């Protein structure tokens, strides 16, 4: 299935829990918890803690991030918060401020 897509005009204030993949292009404030991959598109604003299997940040994320697999911070992405993941990539051009714990 397509999973959950939060379009650019949509604002969700509250908790999101999903067992499938989530693509955020809009605004999310609260908490986001998914069992699948989460993608934060360019232009998205996420002010929430994110827990996901994997996470790709191309937009603006403010909050702690926990991924069971990997976190990719793409160019143009901005992440302010702590990251807890087994694998992490930070692309050239991304902004990041926070701690990193790679379960070492």
């Amino acid at each position: 299935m397509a999973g959950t897509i939060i379009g650019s005009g949509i604002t969700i204030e509250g908790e999101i829990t999903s067992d499938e993949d989530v693509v955020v292009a809009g605004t999310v404030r609260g908490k986001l918890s998914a069992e699948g991959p989460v993608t934060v598109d360019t232009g998205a604003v996420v002010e929430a803690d994110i827990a996901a299997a994997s996470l790709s940040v191309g937009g603006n994320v403010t909050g702690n991030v926990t991924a069971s697999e990997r976190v990719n911070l793409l160019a143009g992405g901005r992440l302010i918060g702590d990251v807890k993941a087994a694998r992490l990539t930070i692309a050239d051009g991304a902004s990041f401020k926070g701690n990193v714990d790679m379960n070492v």
Partner: protein
Amino acid sequence: MADLSTIGRGTTIRGNIRGDGDLDVHGRVDGSVTVKGELSIAETALVKSDVSARRVVVRGAVAGNVSADESLVLEAGARVVGDLSAPRIGIRPGALLRGNVTTAGAENAPARARAGARPAAAEPARTPARAATPARPAVSAHTPSPTPAARAPMPAARPPAQTPVAPPRAAAPTHNPSHNSASHSASASDGVKAPSREGPPPPVVPSLGRGAKASLKRKGAR
């Protein structure tokens, strides 16, 4: 991408959703949904709060008021407990509804309702709200669907249980002169056992008793 958003089937949102564009809800939302475009509530969806959009199509469950700026359609499979309000409202056969229905500036709902079963659904739905529970057996009797558990005991309780219903029924004739809707609901519940002997019920003045009759029905039905 800017336009259509989807809340997938495995997703639960506890909070409010607002925005422009269209939204397709397949999952659960415990909170209000206000969208400026078209809102589609799929069969697997469950929305527990008010819902508002320019155009709304409901195929799933909504526990809350539904309002639309343009048009509102309940398709077969829709289960709505709450008021509907839109300039144009469509309720397809198979949709379940418990609540008031208001189209723009219309007070004559029985006349506007579309087909035979619908006047029964729309007309108790038109009763000035709160003590509307006693009229529910009329609605449930016409639209047999076991999915909402709340409705299942009611049609089950009324027709087969002639005896438990007897004491309220015995009281019913005494209330008959004052509340013709009482005989209404009684005959509608008979209608479940024997095919309705009087076609679509005549548009009665839904003067539902807020007093003894309502409480008797409540005791008898639940």
